[in-house]
């Protein structure tokens, strides 16, 4: 019930709002705030109740009435490891965006209606288990973006940006649609359905024709790639976010952009293993373009919004690298970055919106020394910028390091360059922005800026930064939930339909008794590690000598007896109680 | 005897139809109107051949009588002179006639070549004095359309009055 409510609430509120007469100014904002706050609570409850133990989809609810039975379309919502975090992030960002949408002056009612429709579309897109509605909700969320940027946007090339962002996204969506329909047609006529679990079940059974995979996977990859500003198709993102009003930029850059990546992970990678293997090399190279190229472009930006836009494009590069690595760490890291970047982009755009509202300009060179005048906003911007360049303590670092660890096995050179992009280029343009906006002497005309005084105005920033820090300090809150579903996807992506989990799942990387082969050249691993299901973990542990220093020991006293040798710990435990409470002290 | 009359009336209709459309002698609309009236009359003849006596009468009365008179009245009112022959756009003419011929070819192929079943083996027409059953049908089975028609005519009248008011902007 929570899931259906979470998705439908914004739509109902939007419809309700249309009947509110134009005179009373306040009600639209109050209604929107209430709805999104309720959505936030539902999101948190959903995330908390999600049991990482059992695989498959949870909270599956079907909304009657929508969908056409004949084509096998019915609006079914469900949640598994991958999208539970995204839904939570979407709900949080939606609430923050509504709080920040205070700076919308004229025609506020229409803005809030569109904002609610967009929120509903986003949450629906992430929650739906039906390919048709998966696509439908995304398009539904796209329309308000166009209108909001067009009407309430800012900057002189606003119209150009509006049309560009919409044309690009529709083009991308069309290519993806082509892929989805081709996928739908691959099923035998009688079993044809848009239901994702059914399709995955079917293709887990027997593989799709190789030729079809070669065709459908690129279509989906480039279609979703355009939606997520993959390198050659990225020019719409910075421009669009530069011109968009704060709330739209937050929602779009933060959440809607993840739709493409979610689509890749949910649909493209598991269903088309051969297609994936062949094309992911290209994806890895393109994501380098994202990371390095857009990082360098971001260094040249004069406008704060363009800088944040470019940096968010660069961050997408890491997610692509994570997906391209096709192994458990990489994909889990990719999902963590998606969530972390959502929050980061939201808080950065909220702050730049706040600064724009005060100073009426986003020219970095004209701003300076703001930290003295607006300490809270300044500190929040510094934290956001530092999170942006992957500082530990924030969730972005967790995601990025997991992607680096994951992709190092498959593409070592690309990962090295990605590290350069993340650590150096990211730090350069972020700190340069902080230096010229916040530090240095305070120019005359910013003497009268007002800081975020009362609690209400600080709430959105506090919520977003708190979540970033929470997942940064206790990443297991996220990773334990993502891991099981990521495992099934990785197993399918490695062509591991249940049957082929036999022989060598005990892979030589672990120090299992026998010494590693002598000369281990720096070549990438033969292929992503075919990790088995839970059983392989057990085998991994029991075979041969004690696994050195690997498993979880009790936090406090080590098992007595000095025989373990200095620093060596052998838990000898097979299953693991992965309690969701972050720093899981207990065994 | 039947066939002779049929060929006579058919030839007359087609000839007058052609003369309405493309009169080699004079381009005056009046002559076209006259030939149109003649076409309608020969059509009425064909109707009688098909035992639709009432319709033949209606055709002549309403169509030839009222509509043609209206046409003539408007032509006289507008005093449309024999305007000079505009430059005939040859290209337009040829393509136009080609496409019309194509459509006729399609009809011809359908009617003649493929529908042996349609006309053959029909019982001899039993409808003597066809007007009574037509009247019954009109006032029983098709009563609703009949009423709607009256409304249609009323609307047409209102429309005409409105259109021909003096101060039409």
């Amino acid at each position: 019930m929570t899931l259906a409510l979470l998705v439908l609430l914004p739509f109902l509120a939007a419809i309700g709002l249309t009947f509110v007469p134009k005179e009373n100014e306040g009600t639209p904002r109050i209604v929107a705030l209430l709805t999104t706050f309720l959505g936030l609570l539902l999101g948190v409850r959903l995330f908390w109740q999600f049991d990482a133990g059992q695989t498959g989809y949870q909270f599956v609810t079907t909304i009657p009435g929508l969908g056409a039975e004949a084509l096998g379309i019915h609006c079914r919502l469900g949640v598994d490891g991958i999208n539970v975090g995204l839904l939570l992030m979407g709900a949080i960002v939606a609430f923050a965006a509504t709080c920040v949408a205070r700076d919308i002056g004229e025609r506020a009612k229409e803005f809030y209606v569109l904002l609610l429709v967009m929120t509903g579309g986003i949450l629906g897109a992430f929650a739906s288990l039906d390919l048709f509605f998966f696509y439908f909700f995304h398009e539904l969320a796209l329309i308000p973006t166009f209108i909001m940027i067009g009407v309430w946007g800012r900057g002189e090339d606003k119209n150009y940006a509006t049309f560009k962002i919409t044309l690009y996204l529709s083009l991308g969506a069309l290519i993806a649609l082509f892929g989805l329909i081709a996928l739908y047609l691959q099923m035998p006529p009688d079993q044809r359905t848009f239901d994702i679990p059914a399709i995955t079940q079917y293709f887990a059974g027997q593989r799709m024709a190789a030729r079809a995979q070669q065709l459908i996977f690129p279509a989906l990859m480039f279609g979703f790639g355009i939606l997520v500003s993959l390198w050659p198709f990225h020019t719409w993102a910075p421009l669009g976010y530069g011109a968009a009003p704060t709330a739209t930029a937050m929602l779009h850059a933060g959440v809607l952009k993840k739709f493409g990546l979610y689509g890749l992970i949910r649909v493209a990678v598991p269903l088309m293993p051969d297609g994936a293997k062949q094309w992911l090399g290209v994806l890895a190279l393109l994501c380098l373009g994202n990371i390095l190229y857009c990082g360098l472009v971001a260094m040249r930006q004069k406008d704060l919004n363009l800088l944040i836009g470019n940096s968010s494009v660069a961050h997408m590069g890491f997610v692509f690298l994570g997906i391209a690595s096709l192994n458990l760490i990489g994909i889990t890291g990719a999902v963590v970055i998606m969530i972390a970047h959502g929050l980061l982009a939201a808080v950065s755009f909220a702050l730049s919106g706040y600064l724009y509202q005060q100073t009426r300009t986003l020219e970095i060179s004209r701003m300076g020394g703001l930290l003295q005048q607006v300490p809270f906003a300044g500190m929040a911007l510094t934290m956001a910028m530092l999170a942006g360049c992957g500082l530990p303590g924030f969730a972005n670092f967790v995601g990025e390091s997991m992607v680096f660890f994951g992709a190092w096995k498959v593409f070592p050179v690309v990962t090295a360059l990605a590290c350069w992009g993340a650590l150096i280029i990211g730090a350069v343009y972020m700190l340069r922005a902080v230096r010229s906006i916040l530090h240095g002497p305070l120019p005359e005309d910013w003497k009268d800026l007002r800081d975020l005084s009362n609690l209400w105005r600080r709430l959105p920033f506090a919520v977003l930064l708190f979540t970033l820090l929470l997942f940064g300090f206790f990443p297991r809150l996220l990773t334990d939930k993502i891991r099981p579903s990521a495992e099934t996807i990785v197993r399918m992506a490695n062509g591991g339909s249940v049957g082929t989990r036999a022989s060598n799942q005990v892979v030589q990387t672990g120090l299992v008794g026998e010494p590693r082969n002598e000369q281990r050249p720096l070549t990438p691993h033969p292929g992503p590690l075919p990790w088995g299901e839970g059983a392989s973990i057990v085998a991994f542990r029991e075979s041969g000598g004690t696994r050195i220093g690997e498993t979880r020991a009790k936090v406090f006293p080590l098992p007595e007896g000095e025989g373990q040798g200095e620093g060596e710990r052998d838990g000898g435990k097979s299953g693991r109680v992965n309690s969701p409470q972050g720093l899981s002290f207990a065994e | 005897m039947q066939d002779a009359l049929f060929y006579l009336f058919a030839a007359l209709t087609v000839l007058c139809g052609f003369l309405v459309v493309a009169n080699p002698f004079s381009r005056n609309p009046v002559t076209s109107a006259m030939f149109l009236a003649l076409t309608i009359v020969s059509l009425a003849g064909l109707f009688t051949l098909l035992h639709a006596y009432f319709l033949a009468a209606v055709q002549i009365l309403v169509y030839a009588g009222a509509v043609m008179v209206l046409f003539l009245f408007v032509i006289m009112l507008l005093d449309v002179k024999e305007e000079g022959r505009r430059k005939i756009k040859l290209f337009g003419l040829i393509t136009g006639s080609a496409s019309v011929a194509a459509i006729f070819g399609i009809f011809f192929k359908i009617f003649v070549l493929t529908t042996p079943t349609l006309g053959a083996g029909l019982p001899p027409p039993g409808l003597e004095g066809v007007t009574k059953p037509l009247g019954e049908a009109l006032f029983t089975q098709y009563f609703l359309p009949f009423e709607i028609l009256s409304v249609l005519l009323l609307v047409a009248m209102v429309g005409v009055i409105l259109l021909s008011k003096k101060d039409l902007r």
Partner: protein
Amino acid sequence: MSASLEHYLVVSALLFCLGLFGVIARRNLLIIYMSLELMLNAANLAFVALSRFNNNLDGQVMVFFIITVAAAEVAVGLALIVALYRKRQTAHVEDLTLMKL
């Protein structure tokens, strides 16, 4: 051989194409209108022929309706032409290229 259905249908097709040609080729609005009437009559002929050979009255009722509609249509059409003429002093199709008069 007595005049069978195809003969009538051929005549009506011929008449219809003549009317169509008139609409396309002629540039005088009135003539176009007359060819339109011609096309209507061709349809009437086909209806009557079919009603005769299928031995039921629906065709004839339909023709009756068509005639009424045609009459209404002529009335309104001519009124339009008159209004047009008064405004533009021409009934020539080539001059009337603008939607707004």
